[in-house]
């Protein structure tokens, strides 16, 4: 106990020191700092809003990942590749049949659920007693397989879709709103707004499913204690199957939501995969609320990071936050201590 207290105190002292140092640095250059903030004010606001909007989609991807980890103890490296599959399904439906991406969610979600169930049954379950690194490699092998299958089918050319609405005056219910929306000096496009709202609705649905239904209770029970759940009559094999399916269905929805403002090529999902890892560790592996919180932190960090470090890629700031969290709170912001 004393050791824990000591290490916690050390962490607090360390964090306080860092904040103090930052304050002194800012104080020394108070004039320049305030000038810089004034100049970059619109950019910072935009970064904040974009970060929150994109964070909503990240949340959906990360919830799928964290759910799979919580119940099956698998870090699913094929998560991004499965998202790419969802994006191609959305693309084909739009390009060949003119189906709106927001409607094709009704197809991508069940399709990806089925793919997830098949993957779990054929690849994951036979190895469920193997050491954890084997499961990790299996999902890596699956990612290789999927990525290259898509390369064979669709070639490496990036593709995107262009919706014929969302610019100019758009009727939404009884209102007519001019898009892109200008709010508090920021610009919000319809695509990102819809993606955010629908992602949040789906995330809430998932949360209710887990909290209120019998299926959700069984899933949470097997995440907490497999043997205990089995003893009280939960069919943990079936729960594993369904959980993997739900986790993968989450990226199916995310895939349809991002395509209108993103692009798809055989490795398009990989950035989402990496981001989702960061989010899940940040929030605590296996924690659904943690994934939501982590997603917003990461979304804002990546957009803000570009403002503070203009020449770097979006991910650098995210990785810095990631490593800090791993070192100071490895169980994550909302994770349970082992």
């Amino acid at each position: 106990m004393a050791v824990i207290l000591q290490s916690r105190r050390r962490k607090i002292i360390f964090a306080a020191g860092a904040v103090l140092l930052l304050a002194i640095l800012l104080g020394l250059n108070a004039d320049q700092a305030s000038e810089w903030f004034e100049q970059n004010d619109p950019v910072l606001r935009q970064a904040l809003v974009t970060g929150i909007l994109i964070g909503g989609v990240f949340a959906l991807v990360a919830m799928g990942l964290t759910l799979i980890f919580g119940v099956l103890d698998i870090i699913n490296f094929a998560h991004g590749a499965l998202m790419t599959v969802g994006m191609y399904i959305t693309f084909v439906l739009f390009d060949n049949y003119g189906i709106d991406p927001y409607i094709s969610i009704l197809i991508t979600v069940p399709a990806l659920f089925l793919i997830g169930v098949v993957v779990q049954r054929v690849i994951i379950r036979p190895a469920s007693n193997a050491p954890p690194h084997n499961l990790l490699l299996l999902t890596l092998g699956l990612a290789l397989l999927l990525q290259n299958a898509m390369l064979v089918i669709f070639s490496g050319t990036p593709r995107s879709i262009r919706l014929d609405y969302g610019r100019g005056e758009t009727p939404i219910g009884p209102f007519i709103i001019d898009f892109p929306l200008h709010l508090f000096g920021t610009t919000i496009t319809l695509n990102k707004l819809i993606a955010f709202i629908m992602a949040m609705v789906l995330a809430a649905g998932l949360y209710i499913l887990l909290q209120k239904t019998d299926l959700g209770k069984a899933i949470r029970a097997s995440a907490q204690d497999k043997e205990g759940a089995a003893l009280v009559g939960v069919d943990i094999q079936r729960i594993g199957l369904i959980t993997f399916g739900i986790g993968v269905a989450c990226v199916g929805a995310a895939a349809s939501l991002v395509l209108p403002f993103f692009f798809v090529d055989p490795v398009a999902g990989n950035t989402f995969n990496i981001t989702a890892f960061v989010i899940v560790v940040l929030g605590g592996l296996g924690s659904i609320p943690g994934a939501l919180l982590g997603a917003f932190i990461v979304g804002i960090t990546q957009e803000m990071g570009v403002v503070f470090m203009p020449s770097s890629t979006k991910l650098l700031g995210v990785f810095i936050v990631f490593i800090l969290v791993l070192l100071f709170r490895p169980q994550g912001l909302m994770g349970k201590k082992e």
Partner: protein
Amino acid sequence: MSKLRELSSDYYWLLAVTAVFAVVSLFLDQFQISLAILILFWALLGAAWNILGGYAGQFSFGHAAYYGIGAYTSVVLLINFEVSPWVGMAAGAALAGLFALLIGYLSFRYGLKGAYFALATFAFAEMLRLIASELELINTSVGIHVPLIGGDSWLRLQFEDTPSNFFFAILILFVVVMLVSIWVARHKVGYYFQAIREDEDAAAALGVDPLGYKLAAIVISGALTALGGSFFVQHFGYVNPELVFGVAISIEILLRPIVGGIGTIWGPLIGAIVLTPLAEFTRDFVRNPPPFLEIIEGRAGVDVMIFGVILIAIIIFMPDGIVGAAVRLRERFLS
């Protein structure tokens, strides 16, 4: 007792393997030599990873960090100060060892284990890749070409006229890494590593310092991995951040020891002997498919798809690697 006797024979095995490789190489054509170079190259990297990932049981998913540091250190020293790649290699190993110490100290100090350690190492490697892509000193993401002097030079590790000399260069490096690896495995350090892997608390209770030995494992493993990185630059003649710091390298490095047999002396080499030609053959198969499969001819991606399927099958059917499967087969045969 029988295990001890088995272990002590590993040096003789290494001698035999080296002799076989050296003799056989004299009869190989250009393509086969380059395949042999790749086998030894991946076996070296796998053996280096195996010290940390196999013996000490700390699953690193970011060995690209050390590989890239090795690659860039030697090529930067070569270009700016005309330092021989052999010296650059040693410098790269030292630098990679230091960086490994930093990563190890930060991670192990705070008790990162299992999936968390894997993800942390992954993040460190990705950060190096992003930083390297911005760093002017190493020509950002454009990359660096090794200046060609024309002709052969052991000092400059360049063999334009007789590329097969690269084979002997990598053979030397392979032997160095295997000597360290065997020494670790049969010395008490290796037993401490394994004790920590099996049960850290029990090991600590018996007086083994987990932090110290885990740090030793990551430093040795990182430094040896850097040797492979330096060799890659000289052999390939070009380097950029994606090539040496990318996720693909971290995956390739750990693939062979796991398929061969994690935590065994010969697993990495066996994995390399099986997987490296397999990747080449699937590529060749797609280039010249049998008549009934002409549809796949020359299609990019099919070869990696086949490789992915075979990889999945190997992991499902041989969960403890080829060495583990062989041991089990022998036991069944004997009993």
